[in-house]
C-alpha cells in the first residue's frame, strides 16, 4: 500500500497544482503576518482561508484528481492488488500531499509568527478540514461516472458546507427564536465540519464575546475536555465515514 501511496504522491507533485497551491498559501501566510503589525488580524485573514479556500481547493482538486486517475486506477485494479488498498492509497496520497501543502503554506508561518493557542487551533482545524474535504471529494467522485457532473457535485457540496448550511441555521434561529435553541445548535453544528472547525477557532479567538449568555453554553461544551474529545471524534467521523462509504462503492464499481 505504501508503494501505491508513494506513486500517488509522486504523481501529484508532478502535476504542479499542489505546488502552486502550497506557494499560494505560503504567499498569503507570510504576507498577512508581514503586512499586518497585528498578528490577531493576520490570524483573522487566515481564518477565511482555512474555512473557505482550503475546503474549496481540497474538494475540487481531489475530485478532479480522482477522475484523472481513472487510467491509473484501471491499471492497478487489473493487477494483483486489493481494491481496498488501491482506494485507501489514493485517499492517503491526496490527503498527505494536501496536508503537507497546508502545513508548509499556513502552518509554518503561523508557527513562526503567531504560535499562540489561537494560531495552533487554526492550523489543527485547517489540517482536519483538508483531510475531511478530500474524503468528501472521494465520495462525490466515486458516485458519478461523469467528470463534469462529479465536479459540479463537489462544488455544490462545498457551497452547502460553507454557505447554505449556515443559511439554514440562521433560518431556524429566526423562525424558532422563541424556543431555546442552544443545545439544538450544538447538535446541528456537528453536521457540518466547517462549522465545528469554526467554533473551535472562535472559542480561542473570540472567547470574550462568546462568554455572553449563548456563548457560555458553547464554552461549557466545547471548552471542556469531554467537549474537545467529542468534537475531535466527530471530525474524525467526518473523515472516516465518507472514505468508508466511498470504499464500499468502489469495491463493487465496474471499471
Amino acid at each position: 500500500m505504501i508503494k501505491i501511496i508513494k506513486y500517488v504522491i509522486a504523481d501529484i507533485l508532478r502535476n504542479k497544482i499542489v505546488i502552486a497551491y502550497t506557494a499560494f498559501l505560503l504567499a498569503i501566510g507570510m504576507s498577512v503576518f508581514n503586512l499586518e503589525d497585528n498578528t490577531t488580524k493576520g490570524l483573522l485573514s487566515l481564518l477565511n482561508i482555512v474555512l473557505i479556500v482550503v475546503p474549496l481547493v481540497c474538494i475540487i482538486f481531489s475530485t478532479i484528481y480522482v477522475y484523472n486517475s481513472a487510467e491509473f486506477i484501471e491499471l492497478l485494479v487489473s493487477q494483483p492488488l486489493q481494491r481496498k488498498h488501491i482506494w485507501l492509497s489514493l485517499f492517503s496520497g491526496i490527503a498527505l500531499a494536501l496536508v503537507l501543502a497546508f502545513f508548509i503554506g499556513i502552518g509554518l508561518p503561523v508557527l513562526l509568527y503567531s504560535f499562540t493557542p489561537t494560531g495552533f487551533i487554526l492550523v489543527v482545524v485547517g489540517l482536519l478540514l483538508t483531510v475531511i474535504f478530500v474524503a468528501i471529494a472521494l465520495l462525490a467522485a466515486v458516485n458519478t461516472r461523469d467528470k463534469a457532473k462529479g465536479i459540479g457535485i463537489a462544488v455544490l457540496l462545498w457551497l452547502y458546507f460553507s454557505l447554505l448550511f449556515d443559511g439554514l441555521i440562521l433560518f431556524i434561529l429566526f423562525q424558532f427564536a422563541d424556543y431555546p435553541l442552544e443545545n439544538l445548535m450544538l447538535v446541528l453544528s456537528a453536521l457540518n465540519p466547517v462549522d465545528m472547525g469554526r467554533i473551535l477557532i472562535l472559542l480561542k479567538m473570540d472567547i470574550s464575546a462568546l462568554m455572553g449568555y449563548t456563548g457560555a453554553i458553547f464554552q461549557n461544551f466545547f471548552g471542556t475536555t469531554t467537549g474537545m474529545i467529542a468534537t475531535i471524534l466527530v471530525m474524525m467521523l467526518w473523515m472516516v465515514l465518507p472514505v468508508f462509504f466511498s470504499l464500499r462503492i468502489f469495491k463493487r464499481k465496474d471499471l
Partner: protein
Amino acid sequence: MKPVFLCIGFLLSVYCTPISAVTLHVEKGHSIYSIQQAVNMAKNGDTILVAPGNYKEKNITINKPIVLLGNNYPVIDGEHTYQLISVRADGVIIKGFKLIHSGTSSLIDIAGIKVYDVKNITIENNILEDTFFGIYLQGATHCTIKNNRLTAYAKTDQQSANGIHCWKCDSLSIIGNTVTGHRDGIYFEFVTNSLIWKNRSIKNSRYGLHFMFSHNDAYIANIFQNNSAGVSVMFTHGVSMLNNVFEDNWGDGCYGIFLKEITDSHISGNTFLRNTTAIFFEGATRILVEKNTFIKNGWAVKIQANSIQNTIKNNNFLANSFDIATNGSLVENTFNKNYWDKYEGYDLNKDGVGDVPYHPVSMFSMIVAENPTAMILFRSFMATLFDKTEKILPSLTPENLVDKLPLMKPLRL
C-alpha cells in the same frame, strides 16, 4: 486633585500631635494584655502599640482620637462572630494589624473595621482576611484608606459582602488597596469628592467597583480584573475615570464599565482588555471617551439608543470581536478620529485620516443583538458576506453611527 491635598493636610495634622502623648504597650502575658483594655486606659492622642500575638477581642470600640499600631501584624480574631474594630471618634489611626474571621450576618453589617460618622480617620497597611465587610465607612469624611489587603473566601453572594464599603461619605482617599473575593471590591454610595487611586480589585463575586449616586469622584490607575460583573457606575455625574485597567471581565451582563444614568463624565486613558463588553452605555449623557485602548473585547462599546451627546474620539480599537453595537437606528453620539483595525479605507492625501468614513457597527452585530444564539454563525462565510453587502448597501445598520475621520494608524497612548 482636591482630595489628595486634603488628605496630605490631614496626615500632617495627625503627625503633629502634642508631645504629652504616651505610648501604651499591649502584649500577651503582660499587664496590658488586651487591646480594648489599652483603649479604655488611653487618653486623647495616645498611641497603643500592640505586640505580635493572637487577640480574641469582642469588637474593640475606639471612642477617642488615638493611634493604634500593630507590631509585625498582631492578629485580631473575631471568631466568626464579632465585628473586629469600631471607630467612633475623629482622628483615629489604625495601622499594621491582621484582622481575621469576622462574624457574618444578613441583618447587620458586620465589618473588619467600621467607621461611624466621624472624620480624619486613617486605616493603613492592614491585612483583612475572611471578614464579612472589610472596611466599612458610614458618614465618614476626610478619611484615608491606604495599602490594605482584603481577602474574603465566601462562596455565595449571600455570605459575602463588600471589601471597602463607603456610604454617605465625603472627601475619602482610597489608595493602593487590594481587594479579592468580596462581593463588590469597592462600593461607593452617596460618596462625593473622593479619590480612588491605584487599587487592585480582583476576582470579586459581583462588581470590582460599584458606584452609585457618588458625584465628583475620580478613580485613577486602578486595576479591575476578573470580577464577575466588572465595574458599574450608576446615577452619577462628574466622574473621572482615568488610566484604569479593565481586564478579563467575562460573562453575560458583565462589563468593563457599565454606565447607567451617568452624565458629564470623563473616561480617558483606560485599557480594556478581553472583556465581554468593555463599555456599556445606558442612558449616559455628555460623556467624553478618549484615548482609551480597547483590545480583544467581545464588544468594545455597546451604546443603547437612550444615550445621547456622548463623544468617542481618539481611541484605539484593536482585535475586538465587535467594535460598536447599538439597539436602535437613531444614534446621537459623536465618533471621531478613532483608530479601528477593521477599517479598510484608504488615505490618498496622506494626512493620516482615512478618506472614506467608517461604519463601526457590523450587520452581523445587529443580527446577534436581535438573536444572541446567532453568535454560533460568527465569522462564517455567510456572516462575512452579510457584512460586506451591508458595507456596500447599508440597510440595517444605523447610518449616522459613523466615524468620518478614521485614523490610518493606531494612536500612541
